[in-house]
């Protein structure tokens, strides 16, 4: 049989399919009405629904951040009580982490783009995909109500023994909500791993996978390996809270530090769940707007996996002051430095990609530059914090707050914005206003640094995080930071306005406005319900800008039910065809 198949493949008929700039039937016009959207199993619509939900919670958590910054305008009380302040920062942190950063890139943009970049019609398990969306929405609303209702104020880390204390209200409900959200994350990860392994179009070998796919693959692995540990941890925490089983409670012979180990075994890899998919977007955007092959394809692809692997071994660096053994802290500190290597490899390769490229400073590319600046600062300060003696001084100060905002907001959210502006024409079929897009990118850069640079300084000078009051000498830093947060708020409103306006009366987007070689751009904008009206055949890598565009628009000439018989095509045979 195998021989026959190979023989068939050599005579495979390939035809050029140039995507139409005026598609008549797209996934947006295919089925209409609220019910069709709510019951759809189409990965593109599910991606858009995720995007809407994530944007909603981002706006909510963003407003809370503005309230927190406003409260910190004066050293004493400005306008809210201390207890309210504690609840608000818990709400802000938990929402940003569990509702926004974790699902943002993989579930929203990843869902939309992943099957298209693989030339597949959908993810491997479309119904599971829809289920994961509803689990997310249910979990998020459940957690939000529990957080807001109970005056929950443990911070997003739920540290024991404070959280296992019966006086700490609502722990059971909040952790149950996070447990539900974890399921959504696990299902997405499982779905993506299977899709990447089994649903690649003819000719997409592992060496021709877009780097965005490599990044999502690494992310999915972390989701699958880390999230269940969080699930069992919060199950144990709930049991501790309900009936004192004594595992985390020191009064009963348990160990609160064990809780921290369990928690960070998930939550440290979780920061890579948030940032690694961002790396994927950067690789896509930077090649498209440099019109150049990515520098060091395998270095970038494998460094994502390296980060996923090493990321599992560094959780102890959150606990340098928690009383773990000095041997353990030394090892964790060393391993933490190791993560810097694959991350540094990525940064250097991206910068090398720019070299002699034909750089086009469009909005997505501006966000990539913002990312490169901010994330590099965030990364280096992470190395600083990984150094043992320095960390003893900086632990739980604003320096840490500034660090993780530089990597999470300066990294993940900037990559998300780059990806959002990059794929927006593909998702909606509309072009946004380029000038407004650029203005917002510059404003975000200014606002971000105004907000968080002063926090490094005051953190180094000893301003502890999560404090409601502060001494007078920090006033100038706090006030600068607050002004910066308002600039950020305005910038996000401009982005919202720009994107919404494009939906109403934006210019019609051509199939491939950026002249990208990526497979997702070889479909119409917006794409057909099945993504492509043919089975794509790939003969070049996604970054081969030295090859003519026609050779990226190939598909099976004869289609059986939308797909050909033989999806495992090897390189040479296809080229002969």
């Amino acid at each position, binding site marked *: *049989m195998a021989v*026959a*198949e190979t023989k*068939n493949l050599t005579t495979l008929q390939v035809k050029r399919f140039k995507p139409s700039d005026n598609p008549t039937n797209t996934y947006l016009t295919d089925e209409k009405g609220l019910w069709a959207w709510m019951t759809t199993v189409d990965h593109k619509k599910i991606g858009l629904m995720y995007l809407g939900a994530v944007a909603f919670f981002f706006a909510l958590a963003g407003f809370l951040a503005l309230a927190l910054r406003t409260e910190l305008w004066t050293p004493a009380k400005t306008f809210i009580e201390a207890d309210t302040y504690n609840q608000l920062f818990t709400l802000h942190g938990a929402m940003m982490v569990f509702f926004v950063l974790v699902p943002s890139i993989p579930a929203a943009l990843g869902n939309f783009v992943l099957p298209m970049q693989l030339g*597949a*019609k*959908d*993810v*491997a*398990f*479309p119904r599971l995909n829809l289920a994961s969306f509803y689990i997310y929405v249910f979990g998020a609303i459940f957690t939000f109500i529990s957080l807001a209702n109970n005056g929950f104020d443990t911070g997003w880390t739920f540290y024991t023994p404070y959280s296992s204390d019966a006086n700490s209200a609502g722990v059971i409900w909040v952790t149950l909500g996070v447990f539900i959200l974890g399921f959504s994350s*696990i299902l997405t*990860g*499982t*779905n993506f*791993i*299977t*899709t990447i*392994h*089994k*649903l690649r179009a003819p000719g997409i070998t592992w060496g021709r996978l877009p780097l965005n796919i490599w990044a999502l693959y690494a992310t999915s692995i972390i989701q*699958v*390996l*880390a*999230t*269940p*540990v969080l*699930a*069992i*941890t919060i*199950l*144990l925490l709930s*049991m*501790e809270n*309900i*009936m*004192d*089983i*004594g*595992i985390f409670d020191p009064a*009963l*012979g*348990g*160990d609160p530090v*064990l809780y921290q180990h*369990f928690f960070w075994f998930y939550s440290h890899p979780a920061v890579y769940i948030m940032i690694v998919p961002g790396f994927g977007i950067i690789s896509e955007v930077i090649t498209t707007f440099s019109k150049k092959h990515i520098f060091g394809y395998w270095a970038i692809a494998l460094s994502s996996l390296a980060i996923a692997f090493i990321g599992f071994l560094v959780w102890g660096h959150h606990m340098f002051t928690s009383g773990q053994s000095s041997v353990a802290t030394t090892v964790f500190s060393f391993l933490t430095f190791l993560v810097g290597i694959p991350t540094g490899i990525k940064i250097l390769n991206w910068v090398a990609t720019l070299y002699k490229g034909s750089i086009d400073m469009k909005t997505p590319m501006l966000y990539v530059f913002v990312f490169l600046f901010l994330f590099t600062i965030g990364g280096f300060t992470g190395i600083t914090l990984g150094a043992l003696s320095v960390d003893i001084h900086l632990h739980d100060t604003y320096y840490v707050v500034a660090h993780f905002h530089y990597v999470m907001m300066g990294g993940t959210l900037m990559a998300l914005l780059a990806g959002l502006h990059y794929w927006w024409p593909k998702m909606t079929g509309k072009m946004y206003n380029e000038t407004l897009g650029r203005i917002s990118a510059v404003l975000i850069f200014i606002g971000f640094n105004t907000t968080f640079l002063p926090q490094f300084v005051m953190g180094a000078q000893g301003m502890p995080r999560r404090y409601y009051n502060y001494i007078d000498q920090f006033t100038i830093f706090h006030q600068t930071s607050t002004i910066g947060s308002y600039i950020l708020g305005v910038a996000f409103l401009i982005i919202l306005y720009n994107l919404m306006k494009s939906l109403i009366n934006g210019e019609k987007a051509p199939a491939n406005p950026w002249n990208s070689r990526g497979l997702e751009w070889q479909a119409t904008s917006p794409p057909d319900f*099945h993504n492509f009206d043919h089975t794509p055949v790939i003969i070049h890598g996604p970054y081969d800008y030295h090859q003519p565009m026609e050779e990226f628009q190939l598909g099976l000439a004869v289609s*059986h*039910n*939308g*797909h*050909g*018989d*033989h*999806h495992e095509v090897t390189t040479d045979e296809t080229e002969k065809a």
Partner: protein
Amino acid sequence: MANHSATHPAHVQHHFVDSDQQFESAKLGMWVFLVNEILFFGGLFCAYIVFRAWYPELFTQAALELNKLWGGVNTIVLIGSSLTVAMAIRSAQKNQTKGLRINLLITIALACVFMVIKYFEYEHKLHLGIAPGSFWNPTPEILHELSDPRANIFFGIYYMMTGVHGLHVLVGIGLMIWLYIRAGKGHFNSEYYTPVEITGLYWHLVDLIWIFLFPLLYLIE
């Protein structure tokens, strides 16, 4: 292979090229999910290791309260059910719907036997006051045997591990009842038996976890 995939059989979902791709995807997805499950139980095993290293004498003492005989019977019951579920898959592959249904029924029955034995074990413990956490209220005789004030922790872990495992057995029973009904409607044949196969995978894992739980909890010397 080439001839059957040209026509799109009814059980193949629209986004798959052919039956093989759908089967392989489902199987890989299940394996990834099983990795998940192992990590989930891994947290409990980790807690077990930590506390056993700290309080070894407590663990040997507390384990004497568990009934080795019934634990052993349950182990044999579960291993037997793993055999019958494998035979169910074999029947499906050979188009033997009747054999498939009989094997599924035996598997369901064995799983129920496991749960019934587990119920009596729990019942007996609760009767003696060996309950988890704040419900801990042992009778004087038990207190005499279990003098360690931290005995609570061992049973906390015991109830968490066996409880979460028991929930997985219940889910498995539900899945197999669903398979039994579908098999009755003739949904499975040698071309399409994916749900039987992946439920079998799940069931083997449930079995495997018990094989680790039994010696770790019951057979400590």
